[in-house]
């Protein structure tokens, strides 16, 4: 799975796997808030791939309550700054 963030620095981009959002560098709990804002506002149809610099454990129950599942997937962008990232694939149940 690719995770290359656009060179213009935008935090949200699209690939064939789904919508990506990079929330690395944000202070907790802003990464969680950004993800939930996208989901609650209908900005994601079925698959969101989120790039974190720490595991968002408090996000998981919120996702479950909204009917979304999640899995940690290996990071494979090849960039040095991806080495420590936590990549989460978030999928709407039934999608």
């Amino acid at each position: 799975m690719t995770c290359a963030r656009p060179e213009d620095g935008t935090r949200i981009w699209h690939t064939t796997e789904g919508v990506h959002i990079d929330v690395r560098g944000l202070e907790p709990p802003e990464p969680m808030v950004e993800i939930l804002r996208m989901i609650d506002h209908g900005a994601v149809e079925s698959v969101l791939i989120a790039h974190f610099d720490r595991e968002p454990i408090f996000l998981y129950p919120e996702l479950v309550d909204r009917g979304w599942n999640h899995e940690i997937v290996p990071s494979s962008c090849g960039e040095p700054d991806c080495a420590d990232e936590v990549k989460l694939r978030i999928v709407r149940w039934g999608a």
Partner: protein
Amino acid sequence: MTLAATFLAGAKSRLLPASIPFRFFATAAVFHVLMWLVLLAWTNEATSFRGGPGPTLAVVHILVLGVLTTTAIGASAQLLPVATRHALAAVWPIKLVFWLTVPGIAALIVGMYAANPEIIIPAAIVTVVGLLLYAGLLADNLRRAGNLAVVAAYGWAALVALVLLVGLGLLLALDYEIGVLPNHAAAALAHMILGGFGFMGLLVLGFSHVLVPMFALAAAPPNRPSFIAFALATAGVAIGSIGALADSMPTLTAAALIGLGAAVLHLWLMSRVLKSGMRKRLGQSFLLIRTAWILLPATLLIGLAALYGLAGSNGPTLFGFLLIAGWLLTFLLGILQRILPFLASMHANRTAGAAPPLLSELAASAPLKLHAVCHGIALAVLSLAIAVDSTWLTRAGSAVGLVGAVAFAWFTASVTRRALHW
């Protein structure tokens, strides 16, 4: 591999085993019940308490050590490694903290109740060793706190207060036997300020910068005013502690006013968080949290009034009661009832490998409603009891508080059972 199963592998790295945080939370729930029970059944002079060994000192330490400190240890041991991205190097030190502090606290309470220095001193030493070990673990995590600058600043200040607090506590214990302090009452007041406003208070203010935005689904407060509030709060604690040790009324007055400034700024930051949050219906936990927020400046105002003899003959007792049972206990119980289902859900995720439970399934609302009502009534009745110096009202308020504490223990047991056996 299922989505949930894949998650299990990743989550193990930074989540402690469920038994670690939940043993501290369960202990706090038991001590919470015990506190109201002792106050109800065996305490006669609580309304005019000014210090000294006996049942009321035991009740105070059941609350501050048994309930507040164990909750703080459990929460910080679980949350900080997640926030800082560094798991604890090993699990055994935090287990050792539990096995030193909890028996130490229990023995200390027995010694205080019986006014027996031969029990108090060794129990205080064991408790201090446990708390210093916890301080070491906290320091190890705080130094990696990275972009959690405000939380880390509060954490470091709380840690310094903890070290001073336990040192002074040990001297107070030794003073019963070998007379090492020139002014026991002044040292006891400094001990209370360092414990209530210092260690516990600064941790509460610091963790609020992550937990309240997380619950409200809002951005964290801006750094600049947060650091101003931090500077005011730590200055208030430092000046207050010095003022207490020096028995200086002007210094204590300055500390209370600076603390009020910190409180007002903190509450303004928190109100901004709630206003900007995506979640507007925050549930009954925020009833407790909002009550605690009102009680924070109220405590400081009562303290200021008591300093000048304007809060009645039991003003100092009311100040201490509002500080530990009002602001701190109310806030922690509000936070705990939000955190426990979260943690249970995450641990249930890990152990099940199947569909994870909903938060609403884990947070039984009936015991929490009963607890919130009883806690509010108990605070009001006991405040009145202290103001009018009524033992009868103290017992009535304690009975109501006991019912609430049993309800909260029921909730804690229910969530803990699900976290460990889902």
